[in-house]
């Protein structure tokens, strides 16, 4: 059989493809629907949070920070409850990372605050002596791309039924509605309103001034995203 295949390239290629193709199907398909279901209490990202997530991705934060708490005592002691599949239901893409040069950030919103992040992103060494994390000062200058975040919200609502503007069940039995604007103009206003809340706890005058005149520096969006990780 093998000799015959080696003389018939078409069937050879077909045999190779059959051999390599089905493993993926067997592993990915059976639990696909189940793995897509959100956990109660998990909400979609707001406009500014999603824009902040894009800042996180743009700077490859995931190259050094994981967002996956494994079910070990040492990890739950350090970072909080271990991760559950449903908590990631609105993460496109997933940001588990593969290397912890810095600590896990899955629940960083539980134990770090806006001003902590502000100081840390400006000068990590001052906040955590001995750190090897570099400063990210350009985030205090560059503007957040709110438009693309809004475009993504429209897309995921349209194609994947992400429940924007719909009540989402919370753990305590209440519901919470994450707003998605009707127009781009409104989306920018929504993001700015979120940014105003964040900068209340910030001290960089340039950043405060920027938000005052309607610009959102990337650091504000990033902090909104960090604070949402719980």
């Amino acid at each position, binding site marked *: 059989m*093998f*000799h015959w295949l080696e003389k018939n390239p078409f069937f050879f290629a077909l045999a190779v493809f059959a051999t390599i193709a089905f493993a993926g199907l067997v592993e990915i398909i059976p639990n696909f629907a189940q793995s897509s279901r959100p956990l109660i209490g998990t909400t979609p990202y707001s406009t500014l949070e999603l824009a902040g997530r894009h800042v996180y991705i743009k700077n490859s934060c995931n190259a050094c920070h994981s967002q996956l708490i494994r079910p070990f005592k040492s990890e739950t*002691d350090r970072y909080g409850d271990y991760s559950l599949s449903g908590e990631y239901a609105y993460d496109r*893409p997933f940001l588990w990372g593969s290397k912890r040069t810095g600590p896990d950030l899955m629940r960083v919103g539980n134990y770090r605050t806006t001003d902590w992040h502000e100081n840390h992103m400006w000068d990590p060494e001052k906040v955590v002596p*001995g750190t090897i994390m570099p400063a990210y000062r350009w985030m205090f200058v560059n503007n957040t791309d709110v438009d693309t975040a809004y475009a993504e919200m429209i897309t995921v609502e349209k194609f994947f039924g992400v429940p924007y503007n719909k009540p989402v069940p919370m753990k305590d039995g209440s519901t919470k509605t994450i707003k998605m604007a009707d127009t781009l103009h409104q989306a920018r206003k929504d993001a700015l309103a979120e940014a105003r809340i964040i900068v209340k706890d910030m001290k960089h005058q340039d950043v405060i001034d920027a938000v005052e005149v309607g610009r959102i520096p990337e650091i504000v969006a990033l902090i909104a995203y960090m604070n949402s990780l719980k």
Partner: protein
Amino acid sequence: MENRPLEYDYSVSKLFIYTSLGIGFVGMLVGVIIAWEMAFPAINTIFGDGAIAEYTNFSRLRVLHTDSVIYGFVLSGVWATWYYVGQRVLKVSMAESKTLMYVGYAHFWIYLFAAVVLVISLLMGITQSKEYAEFEWPLDLGITTVWLLWGASIAGLIGLRREKTLYISIWYYIATFLAVAMLHLLNNLAIPTYYASNGIGAWYHSVSMYAGTNDALVQWWFGHNAVAFVLTTPIIAMIYYFLPKESGQAIYSYKLSLLSFWGLMFIYLWAGGHHILFSTVPDWVQTLGSVFSVILILPSWGSAINMLLTMKGEWQQVASNPIIKFMVMGSTFYMFSTLEGPIQAIKSVNAIAHFTDWIIGHVHDGALGWVVFMIMGAVYHMIPRLYGREIYSKKIMATQFWIQTLGIVLYFTSMWIAGITQGMMWRAHDEFGNLAYSFIDTVTVLHPYFVIRAVGGTLYLIGFAMFIYNVVMTARNGRRVEASELHNTTPMAD
């Protein structure tokens, strides 16, 4: 016409060789820079902390390092050998078909263009964050085009072939083509947001078709097998051609080749789950990933042992011929790396190793010791035959070999220690059951190992620069030799 030896056309092969050398150097240089950045973080802002800091920062450069080395250096190297080996084992010249020549040139130039766009976009931070699949959809389409052109070249050469039986190398090239096509297309399925929202935001942005756990599962099915089918199968294709050619020895066992090839095809694709052990993917997928990773030792070692036994009775060549040195050391590192990988995939080991530098060490003993050594060996074999000249300097080759081997040893030993140290410290509890170390303790302790790694990487880069110099000097100044001198052992000047 009938009995005249074929005049093979190597113009596309040459283009890919030089691209491989160029991007290879840049990619490794970036790697060395970020290694030093981890040891001495001040280097991140070596040009100040203003606007330029964004482009000298570890986080932007790391992606550039991995992607330029994998898709710039390695793929160019693979294609350089394809446009050389393909013609020779299929007994057909590219020059016999104008179409094939056009396909070859289109393949190269579109690839080079895509590579330039890729570098710029990664520096700008345009990424979808999936490891080794960072590129946004316009680049994904470009990559698909390049890949299909390579497919056309494979199909074309095979279609015109005079040698009816496909040689083992061709099996591996075909497998590489098919698997990467499948993985690339399925992992990168995404919806461009600009079009879905009727023209809002960045035109190049997209959102993944998969969410959360599913996205992770698809990504690591891709990520693991991209390693298999970019960094393993085409490299095996090379060694099956170049080692017998250079040594003048026949492949030790055809049956072992068969077993290793089909075994690798069947087993590899299952093992992706070992990248996400203890995650939220279903347990049975994790277990499958673990088990198949261990089974994977069989076909991997099958190939490596087949190569080493091919040298049976001719071991003196390892001492006398640096090209054989590169290939034999490459096979040895392949064995080493394919034993280390399965060990890390065992759940209890993975609990310590995952997220640490041990994984980085593993990648690099495979990449530096096996992939790069093999590509360098192949280029050293090809260059004299492409230009009809002898190797410029055997001394440089031998020196380079030892400098680079030392570099690799420093690299993986330091990363072993760093990884296991950090993994153990993360999980350590004191007598009261509290965590024994804060996270920063587990970072500062790694400093000496980061320095050793950076030194190892720098040595390796120096060796690579010697390689480039030697290749360029061979092409330009090597003594001209007759075709009769080029049968087996490559001629080299001291």
